[in-house]
């Protein structure tokens, strides 16, 4: 039996939806092609996780616009922990409509764009078209990318022109206040040649029971000599089934670093793929998760080495509690011709409960002779000798475990670019392990 049945959305629906949003014709066309694909393509098959019974179809696609937020001094309580009131560069989507948007004037004048995806489609349609599901993620990869392309209902577009260095972080918050509303969220981040930026996003929902879906695609482009630091804290509640695909394309001498705090409470498939296309391009993808309850999560972090002298260091860390399950796949793929590529990876799972399950799969696929690669993977429990040592200084067993867990996750948490977000992630971890 499979629960994926024909969707209540068809060509007419997506065409109408596209019109309501005044989208350019190419976008309407993309949606109609994709809805057809969605009905014919199969679900993706993440390694060692069966997702065919997961809910990808029971959701609401539209919602009334979320109430505007007039000032960062007065944000709803649910968002308080995410916001640094000094931050001038922030977009808050509430039920996929813009509740708050601001961008520093100087950056605006330099041509920096930080705006929601529908505004971007209307105001910068040709620019968006270059990047929207073209070179990074394809609508025809599987049922979920097709569904995403057909039903995209929110997101942001971030653009930094050539030679512009954005020193303050650009932040977005995607707040699913409506418990049934699906997040078909699309994020595009473009760093033109020799530019630099730091981007941080938050996903928030509250639906512990009501079923909903998040189908998120993020496409990041670090052009030649650009430097992009991408941070995220995802915290969608247990009702949400999540498919999240974050993919990056990295040019010559460019760097794309990821620090992902993946703290969803529901079933999650997460793919984070970095294509090191340019020579001397590099990436440090880091991900951290805490599993709890009965959730099953599958995390794939992949670096694809095409260019010469490409360098990547994958780091995955997870703490598993309750009856949760997590699969960590770390994949380094070096293509023929990617001479002197270096693909490193480290996956570590810490099991806090006898009923939790975890698996770390290190994979290196190498089609070139002159390369270096390495992997380390471990699935283990809290070390009794560490506990003994800490307790011998008067620290209780509980507190010692807490310190060890935070310490275990620290190498990723510490990389998050905004202090408030780092604190927020630490609080989330605290809540999940206690």
């Amino acid at each position, binding site marked *: 039996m499979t629960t994926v049945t024909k969707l209540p959305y068809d060509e007419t629906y997506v065409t109408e939806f596209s019109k309501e949003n005044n989208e350019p014709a190419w976008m309407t066309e993309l949606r109609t092609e994709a809805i057809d694909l969605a009905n014919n393509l199969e679900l993706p098959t993440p390694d060692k996780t069966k997702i065919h019974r997961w809910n990808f179809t029971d959701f609401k696609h539209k919602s009334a616009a979320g109430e505007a937020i007039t000032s960062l001094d007065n944000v709803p309580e649910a968002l308080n922990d995410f916001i640094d009131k000094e931050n001038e560069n922030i977009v808050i989507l509430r039920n996929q409509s813009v509740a708050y948007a601001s961008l520093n004037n100087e950056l605006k004048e330099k041509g920096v764009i930080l705006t929601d995806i529908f505004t971007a489609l209307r105001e910068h349609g040709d620019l968006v078209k270059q990047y929207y599901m073209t070179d990074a993620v394809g609508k025809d990869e599987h049922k979920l990318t097709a569904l995403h392309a057909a039903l995209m209902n929110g997101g942001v577009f971030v653009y930094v022109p050539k030679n512009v260095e954005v020193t303050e972080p650009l932040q977005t918050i995607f707040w699913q206040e409506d418990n049934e509303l699906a997040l078909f969220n699309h994020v595009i981040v473009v760093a033109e040649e020799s530019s630099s930026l730091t981007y941080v996003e938050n996903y928030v929902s509250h639906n512990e029971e009501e079923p909903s879906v998040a189908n998120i695609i993020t496409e990041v482009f670090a052009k030649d000599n650009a430097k992009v630091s991408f941070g995220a804290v995802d915290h969608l509640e247990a009702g949400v089934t999540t498919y999240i695909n974050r993919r990056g394309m990295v040019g010559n001498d460019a760097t794309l670093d990821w620090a992902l705090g993946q703290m969803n409470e529901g079933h999650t498939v997460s793919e984070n793929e970095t294509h090191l296309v340019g020579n001397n391009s590099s990436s440090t993808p880091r991900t951290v998760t805490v599993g709890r309850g009965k959730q099953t999560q599958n995390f794939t972090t992949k670096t694809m080495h095409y260019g010469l002298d490409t360098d990547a260091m994958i780091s995955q860390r997870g703490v598993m509690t309750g009856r949760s399950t997590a699969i960590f796949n770390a994949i380094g793929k070096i293509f023929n011709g990617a001479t002197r590529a270096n693909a490193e990876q480290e996956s570590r799972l810490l099991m806090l409960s006898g009923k939790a399950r975890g698996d770390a799969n290190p994979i290196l696929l190498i089609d070139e002779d002159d390369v270096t690669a390495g992997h380390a993977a471990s699935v283990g429990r809290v070390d009794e000798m560490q506990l*003994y*040592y*800490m*307790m011998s*200084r*008067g*620290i209780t*067993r509980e507190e010692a475990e807490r*310190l060890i867990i935070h*310490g275990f996750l620290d190498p990723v948490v510490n990389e998050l670019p905004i202090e408030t977000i780092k604190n927020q992630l630490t609080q989330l971890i605290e809540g999940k392990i206690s």
Partner: protein
Amino acid sequence: MADFTLEIEDLHVSIEGNEILKGVTLTINSGEFHAVMGPNGTGKSTLASAVMGHPKFEITQGSIKLNGEDVLEMEVDERARAGLFLAMQYPSEITGVTTSDFLRSSINARRDEGDEISLMKFIKEMDGSLAELNIDENMAQRYLNEGFSGGEKKRNEILQLLMLKPGISILDEIDSGLDIDALKVVAKGVNKIREETGLGCLIITHYQRLLNYVEPDYVHVMMQGRIVKSGGKELAVSLEEDGYEWIKEELGIEDETVEQA
């Protein structure tokens, strides 16, 4: 400072079914420094670990009391908060927890909620102790023992001793792997706290060397899992000069190590 008395009585300790300690009796009071010496494999470190509550050691007979309280009934952390401290021979490395955070948690574990040490006061105390021990200030921000050299680990143990100010401390081969300069620094730290707090101390060592700098009041020789000879500091000197053979002869011991089943 309050007076402490650690009483070890007829202590028998096993690991995985092998009896290592076969009846050790020893009392340490505040202000007293006891050295336990002896060749390798005679049970010295087992004594240290058993007092602290190492999970791999099983107490099969005897008692340990601190100020009359039954230590064997306490968890490891309770023993520490009651006033015991063990400077370990092989301290664990803990990724992601800085030496500074660890120390602050350790200090706060001894204080009531709402009465935590202020950050300013903590930093001041730590900087003072770091300087005392010639430790690079960077160590405070490094992950606990991770990538530390042998000497750095030992100094870090003494740093903790200085900051936690226990009633009774056990130093388990704190001198091994230290060059003479590092040894002097460690000794200086121990002597400082000895003067300031009236610390009672059990020093476990192979060598007389450390005892030149930290003078013991009593010296005990351990063989075959028992204390076979006790004396004053002059005993350590004669051990240094003449080795252990004369004791073995005197007591008719052929193999001084603990026989393994």
